[in-house]
């Protein structure tokens, strides 16, 4: 069961709130009453959003390090498979050389005998 971090949901809720505030500001004139106040509230929300994204990033780093070390193990096993596949060919080639050498020796001996 993966960890459920509510921070991400809060981030998206604040993001949606900022979008709504920006829409209100964009539809009002800067000379209208309450414009500056809404702008200040939006900037405060942006500060909170930055802080939450920083915390979220810090907290989720362990998910990457954990996946990284799990994959490192699996990659090691895959490399071992590749290595074994390469080795098998080398072993057979060595056996071929060995058999050929015996063949040469026996042929030479049979000529002498």
């Amino acid at each position, binding site marked *: 069961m*993966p960890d459920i*971090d509510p921070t*991400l949901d809060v*981030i*998206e809720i*604040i*993001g949606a709130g*900022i*979008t709504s505030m*920006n829409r209100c*500001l*964009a539809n009002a*004139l*800067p*000379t209208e009453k309450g*414009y*500056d106040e809404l*702008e200040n509230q*939006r*900037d405060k929300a*942006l500060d909170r*959003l*930055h*802080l939450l*994204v*920083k915390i*979220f*990033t*810090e907290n*989720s*780093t362990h*998910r*990457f*390090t*954990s*996946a*990284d070390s*799990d*994959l*490192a193990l*699996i*990659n090691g*096993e*895959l*490399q071992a*498979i*590749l290595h074994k*596949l*390469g080795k*098998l*060919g080398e072993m*057979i*080639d060595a056996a*071929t050389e060995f*058999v*050929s050498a015996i*063949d040469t020796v*026996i042929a030479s001996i*049979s000529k002498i*005998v």
Partner: protein
Amino acid sequence: MIRAFSVNSTMLKRSGSRRTSLRLVGFLFLASVAFGAGCSSNKYREPITKFQTSAAVVSADARKVYSEINRLQRTALIRKHARENKVLRQDDLDKVQPLSRANLHARLDALDRLNDYVDLLVKIANSDAPQSVSKSATDLSGAIANLVGTVNGLASGENADFKVKVNNAFGVGSVIFSEVLKAFIHRKIKDGLEAAILRGAGPINELIDAIEDDLRAYQTVNLAVFHSERTDILKLYNCELAKKESVRCPEDDRTPFNGQRFETYKTQLIASDDLLESLRAADPRESLAKMKKAHLKIVLLAKSGAPADFAEAVAAIEDFAAAVKRFAEAVENLKAS
């Protein structure tokens, strides 16, 4: 090989050895069973190779987002302070940059590992080991046939026992040795791939989820910041325009209407809208969801080996590749704006 077969056939006829006949039947049975199952490792080639191509693009784009997020936030803050004539401190810059060096490295390392994993799967799926081992085995069969021929050519008498031993040890097997080995390697590759895919399922899904969550958070903060920037530019644009009618904004600089400044705000507003559009289009979540689905289909294929799952895996990967293409185009637009 022909020589080996003729030597061995002759040997069979001559000896009529029950043990040799049984060995031949055993080898043929093993070869037919192993060879029948053998080539199934090939079925992973197409889906895994396609998955690799698309995963590499997603990984490169995620890397781009990670590398760019701090710069985007920093630049936006510098522009905001400049617009508002506010003092800028290092603390202000540090607050808006979400990724520390250590956190960035942890992410880039995991992406590297994901690429390594997929590359290794592709290497194994496309391995020429069955062919090269089969060639080596054919060479060995030839060498053995030569040896058997040489031994059989020895004068009879005291060599008779030695001849029987050599024939029993190397005789019939050499004929089908390379095919058995080839099938064995195919089976090894298939088993290795399936085990790796099943074991990799958990970490890969977790990694895709973690990247997706990060990108959700960064997409939210990017949209919030650049939407706010657009609102601020719109405010300056409207305030400048208001001066024409002698209406003043609360933070007005008390200067008269300036046509050049108005043009600058207009250009900035257009650029800001373009940037927002690119940001919305470059949302990578569609690609990541499709990547997860394509990966799941490969895992299901590894579990069942059914042709229907193979077809579904290929379809899911093609879907994933199309989503990646759209995302890559959007990222290019974002970079250009």
